[in-house]
C-alpha cells in the first residue's frame, strides 16, 4: 500500500527542489532526510558558542532561477546580504587586486594592457558560458539516433553555439577542453588575476589549472549568474530554511532523522524504502537525491543491478580536494587593508594553485594551500558576538584519503593558518576556536563520497550524458521506479537545485 506518490531520499537543495516541483504537479511527496535538519550542504552552523558560519558552501553563485521562482524563495524568507560580492585577490605585500562586479567586471588595479586583455577574455568566456548554460536546465541528451531527445531544443542550442560567429565558434571548439592555465598565460600578465581565475576554475574540483579540461569548469561556474556571487542573509542555512518552508507550503511531507537503509524492490521495480529503524514506506516512485554511488551500492545492492553497471558505480570518481575552515576570531583580522566584506582569495599565481594540487595527487598536504575567505560576520549581524568575527574559508587542496587522517588534518590546519597569517599578520592571535573539515570529515558529515561536494567529481568525463553514468544520466536508472535527483547527476552540485528540478521535469515528462 503506497504511503505516497513519491519518496525522495535526501533533503538537500536538490531533494527539496525536486520535491517542490513534483508536489506542484499534483503528487504527494515525502522527503526523507537522515540529518536532524533539511538542507544538506546548505546550512548555517554554530561551530563555537556565538560564532556562526555556513557549514559547507558559503556563497550562492548558481542557485537555479527556476527554483527561486518556482518555489518563491523570496516570499519564504530568502534574503541576501549582498548579491554582487566583490573579490579581492590578496597579495602578501598588500598590493591587492580588487575585482568588482560579476566575474571581475571592473578591475581598475590592472595595467592598461591587462585591462583590455581581461575585458576581451572575460567577454569571450561569458559568451561561451552563455551558450552552455541552457544545457544545465535540461536533462542531458543521449548521443544516439532515435533516443527521444528534444531535437528542436538541441538544434536551438547548437545554433546558439554557431551564432557566436565563425571566429568565436572556432575558438569555442579549440578551448572547450583546454586547460585554464594556458588560456590565462596566453592572454593575461597579472599574476594576481591569473591566480584568482585559476583558483575559481579548480574550486571544488580534483584537478589543477594545468590539467586539460579545466577551463570548462570555469565556464560552468559562470553558467549560473554569469559569475555573480551572493551572500545570503544569515548564511547558507537561509537557503535551506526558505526551501524547507516552500516545500512544506507546497504540501511536501518532510521527515528529518529518517535514514534510509535500503530501497525496496518488488518484482523488477523500486516500490519504496526501508528506514534503518525497519520502518517501510511504499511508493511507486523512489527518487534518490543523495550520492549516486551510495544509492546503487548500499541502498539498492548488486542483486537488482547488472554486474557491469554495478562495477562502474564503483568507478564514479569522487575525490574531494577542498577543506572547510571555520575560525572564531576575537577581532577583525586585517588582510593588509583588504576590504573584509569582499571575497578574499589567496592564490597569488597559477603556479601556486598548481603546486597546491600536486600534493593531493599523492594523498599529501600541500605546504601552501590556496583559499577563499569570507567573513560572514562582516556581512550581517548574528554571525559572531559583538566586536568578534567568524571566518569561513575553503582551503585547497586537501587530500581525501591520507594515510593518517588526524595528522593530515592538523598539518592542513597549520598550513592554512600559516597562509592566513602571512596575508593577515596577527590573525593567529585572534583565534578563539578553529575547526577544519577535511574532505573525509565532509564525507562523514554530509554523506558526500570522498568529500567531493558534487557527489562525484565535476570533470568532463563525468559531465552531461556521462553523469553519473550513461545508463542513469537522464535521471532514470536501470531499476524501474528508481530515479536520481542529486548533485551526482547533471549538472552537478553547488547550492543550485538544478539537478533536482531537472529530475522532476524529466519524471513529469516521462510519466505523463
Amino acid at each position, binding site marked *: 500500500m503506497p504511503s505516497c506518490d513519491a519518496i525522495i531520499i535526501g533533503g538537500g537543495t536538490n531533494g527539496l527542489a525536486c520535491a517542490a516541483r513534483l508536489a506542484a504537479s499534483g503528487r504527494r511527496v515525502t522527503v526523507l532526510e537522515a540529518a536532524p535538519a533539511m538542507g544538506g550542504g546548505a546550512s548555517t552552523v554554530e561551530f563555537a558558542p556565538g560564532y556562526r558560519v555556513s557549514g559547507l558552501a558559503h556563497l550562492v553563485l548558481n542557485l537555479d532561477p527556476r527554483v527561486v521562482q518556482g518555489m518563491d524563495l523570496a516570499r519564504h524568507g530568502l534574503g541576501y546580504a549582498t548579491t554582487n560580492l566583490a573579490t579581492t585577490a590578496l597579495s602578501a605585500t598588500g598590493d591587492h587586486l580588487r575585482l568588482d562586479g560579476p566575474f571581475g567586471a571592473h578591475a581598475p588595479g590592472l595595467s592598461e594592457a591587462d585591462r583590455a586583455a581581461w575585458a576581451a577574455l572575460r567577454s569571450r568566456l561569458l559568451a561561451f558560458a552563455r551558450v552552455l548554460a541552457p544545457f544545465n536546465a535540461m536533462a542531458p541528451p543521449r548521443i544516439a539516433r532515435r533516443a527521444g531527445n528534444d531535437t528542436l531544443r538541441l538544434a536551438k542550442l547548437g545554433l546558439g553555439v554557431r551564432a557566436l560567429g565563425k571566429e568565436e565558434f572556432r575558438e569555442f571548439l579549440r578551448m572547450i577542453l583546454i586547460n585554464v592555465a594556458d588560456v590565462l598565460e596566453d592572454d593575461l600578465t597579472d599574476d594576481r588575476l591569473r591566480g584568482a581565475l585559476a583558483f575559481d576554475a579548480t574550486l571544488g574540483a580534483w584537478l589543477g589549472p594545468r590539467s586539460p579540461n579545466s577551463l570548462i569548469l570555469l565556464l560552468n561556474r559562470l553558467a549560473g549568474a554569469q559569475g555573480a556571487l551572493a551572500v545570503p542573509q544569515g548564511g547558507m542555512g537561509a537557503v535551506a530554511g526558505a526551501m524547507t518552508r516552500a516545500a512544506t507550503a507546497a504540501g511536501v511531507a518532510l521527515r528529518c532523522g529518517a535514514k534510509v537503509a535500503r530501497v525496496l524492490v518488488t518484482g523488477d521495480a523500486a516500490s519504496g524504502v526501508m528506514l534503518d529503524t525497519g520502518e517501510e514506506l511504499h511508493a511507486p516512485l523512489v527518487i534518490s537525491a543523495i550520492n549516486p554511488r551510495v544509492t546503487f551500492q548500499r541502498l539498492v*545492492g548488486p*542483486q537488482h543491478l*547488472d*554486474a*557491469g553497471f*554495478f*562495477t562502474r558505480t564503483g568507478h564514479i570518481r569522487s575525490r574531494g580536494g577542498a577543506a572547510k575552515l571555520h575560525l572564531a576570531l576575537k577581532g577583525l583580522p586585517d588582510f593588509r587593508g583588504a576590504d573584509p566584506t569582499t571575497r578574499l582569495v589567496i592564490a597569488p599565481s597559477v603556479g601556486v594553485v598548481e603546486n597546491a594540487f600536486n600534493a593531493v595527487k599523492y594523498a599529501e598536504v600541500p605546504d601552501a594551500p590556496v583559499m577563499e575567505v569570507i567573513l560572514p560576520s562582516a556581512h550581517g549581524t548574528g554571525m559572531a558576538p559583538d566586536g568578534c568575527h567568524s571566518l569561513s574559508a575553503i582551503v585547497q587542496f586537501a587530500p581525501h584519503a591520507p594515510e593518517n587522517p588526524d595528522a593530515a588534518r592538523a598539518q592542513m590546519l597549520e598550513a592554512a593558518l600559516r597562509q592566513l597569517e602571512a596575508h593577515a599578520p596577527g590573525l593567529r592571535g585572534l583565534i578563539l576556536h578553529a575547526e577544519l573539515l577535511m574532505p573525509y570529515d565532509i564525507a562523514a558529515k554530509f554523506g558526500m563520497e570522498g568529500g567531493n561536494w558534487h557527489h562525484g567529481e565535476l570533470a568532463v568525463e563525468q559531465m552531461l550524458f556521462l553523469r553519473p553514468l550513461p545508463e542513469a544520466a537522464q535521471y532514470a536508472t536501470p531499476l524501474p521506479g528508481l530515479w536520481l535527483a542529486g548533485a551526482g547527476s547533471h549538472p552537478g552540485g553547488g547550492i543550485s537545485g538544478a539537478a533536482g528540478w531537472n529530475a522532476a521535469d524529466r519524471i513529469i515528462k516521462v510519466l505523463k
Partner: protein
Amino acid sequence: MKDHFHTPLRQTPFHPRTSALNRLNQWGAWAGYTTALAFDDEAMEYTAIRNGASLYDLCPMVKYRITGPDAAAYLNRLTIRNAAKLSVGGVHYTVWCDDAGKVLDDGTLFRHGAEDFMLCCQERHLPWLLDSATGYEVQVREVTEEVAALSLQGPCSAAVLQAAGFDMCNLRPFRMAKLGFEGVEITISRTGFTGDLGYEIWATPAQALPLWDALMRAGAPWGIRPIGTSALNLARIEAGFIITNMDFIPADQAVREDRARSPFELSLDWMIDWEKGHFTGRRALLAEKARGSSWALVGLDIEGNVSAEGSLIYHNRKTEVGHVTAAAWSPATKRNIALAQVRRPHHTGDTLWVEVYALRELQYHKLMLRAHVTERPFFAPARRRATPPGAF
C-alpha cells in the same frame, strides 16, 4: 616462476601418458596448454567414442570454485539459469551474459554442496566473476591447475568404470558421485561433450597418472583409446554442442560490435529463468524478447557429402544471411551436418543455400548446396540417457 616464458605452453598432468601415446605427434595449443589433436588415427578415435570407450584429457578447461553462504545467490545473479534449483550432486549447463544480454561464455556448473560450486568453462573470466561478487559473501577462486580431469566417453564407458572399480550404474545424467581412489576422493559426473553415454572424472594432479593407468587397463577389453581434439570435435558437432570462440565470440572479446550474441541468438534462451529475480543482462534480454533478435544458431542438414566448414549461407542463393561455424559429414547419422549462425527470419524458412569451396587436389570447387534447418542434436542415442546404462 619467473622463467615461465621459456615454456609458453604448459603440459597437463597427463602429459607423460599422452605424449607417450601420441604417435602422430600432433599437438595443439588450448588455453595455455599443449594437448593432443590426434594420437594415431582420427577416424578410429572417433569410432572409439561411438563404439567402445575413449579417454580425453580435459585439464585445460578453465575451472572456478565458488563457495560461501551467498554462492547460490551469486550464481543466480551471474548466470541466466536458476542455480538455486540445482540440487547438491547435480550438474547443469548454463550461460552468463554481460549487461547488454550478450553471452560471455557457456559452461557446466557442478554443485558440490549447499555453498560449494564448481564452474567449468572454455575462457577465463576472473575479473568478471570477481566484479560480480561485490556485495556477496562468496569466494571465487580459479582452480584449473588444482584439478586433473578426464572425459571417459562411449557406449562402454559405464562398463569400463565398473571394471576399474567405480560402480556408476545408478548415476543418472547430470549427476555426480564422489568416491575414493587411492585413498583420495575423486568426483565422477555423468556429463560429457559427445552426446553419447559418458562420464567425466575430476581428480587431483597427483592422482592423474594412476587414474589414467587404471582406466586404460580396465578399458582394454572394450578397446579404450585416448582421443584427441579432432575426434572429439566431430562427436560434439553430431551432438549439436557449441564451443566458445568457435561457434560464437564471447561478448567481452568481441572487438566488432555486431559479433556478440545473446542467448536468444544462440538458441539457448530455454535456459533463462525469468522468475528467479534479477540477473545480469535480464533487462536487456527482456527488451530483446519484446523487440526480436537478429540472429539464430541453427543445425543444418546440407545436401551432398561435402563438408561446409567455413561457408557463407545465402537466402535464395543470393542474399548473404549467415555463415557456418562448424560442419562435418556425420558418420553416426550419415548426414552432411553443420552448425550455423543465420540472420532472422531466415532461420526458419527453407530458402537457405551454402556456398562451399571444396578443395580437391589443390583446386577449389565452388558448390552451391541446399541446406535445411534441422533439429539438434543431430545424433541422440537412447543410451546417453538410460539409467542404468545397460551393456552396449
